[in-house]
């Protein structure tokens, strides 16, 4: 939106997203989206009738959390490397 508005608007948005608070929001947002996506993939597994047992459900929930943190760290690391 800012890029489509003007260069001045872009500078303001870019400056905010580059600040420590902006980066914190970006990381949190990335984690939330990745966790939500993995949760959705878990629903696709359940849709096939698999993984519905009590231990499988608990394991999937823990795997979801762990994988979302790991994937977020990878994405953020790539982000800092290419920046």
């Amino acid at each position, binding site marked *: *939106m800012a*890029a*489509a*508005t003007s*260069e001045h608007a*872009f*500078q303001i948005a*870019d400056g905010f997203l*580059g600040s420590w608070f902006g980066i914190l929001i970006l990381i949190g947002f*990335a984690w939330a*989206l990745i966790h939500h*996506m993995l949760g*959705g*993939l878990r*629903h*696709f597994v359940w*849709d096939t009738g698999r993984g519905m047992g009590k231990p499988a459900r608990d394991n999937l929930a823990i795997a979801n959390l762990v994988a979302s943190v790991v994937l977020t760290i990878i*994405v953020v690391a*790539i*982000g800092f490397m*290419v*920046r």
Partner: protein
Amino acid sequence: MMAGNTMRTPLSRVLFLGAAHMGTTHFWRQRLTGAANAVLGIAFIILMLTVIGRPYADVVATLSSPLPALILVLLFISVAIHMRIGMQVVVEDYVHSESLKVLALVGSTFFTVAVAAVAIFAVLKLAFGG
């Protein structure tokens, strides 16, 4: 269920669309857009990683080229539909007052359309050089 005791018409039962006349439409659409979101979302992350920290002219050039612009527009449409259905599920589960529920659903629809329209317009403006 005993057929003789139901108030539902034979047509209603054979159409299998339930009380809201939507049947499994939302269920299926949520999965369809979910799958689209996963694919487009990963493309979006890659796209963002290529523009992060770049100067204004580079970002505009990248986002206005055909493939990135198409990815963004398709993602916004898919996410908007997915978000709207998801919010309806939450509202229907947790908002018990009938009037508040309708208000929340209407507000949710307005919000979704507004966000999608602004986001898509921004990409089109970049792509067609406004």
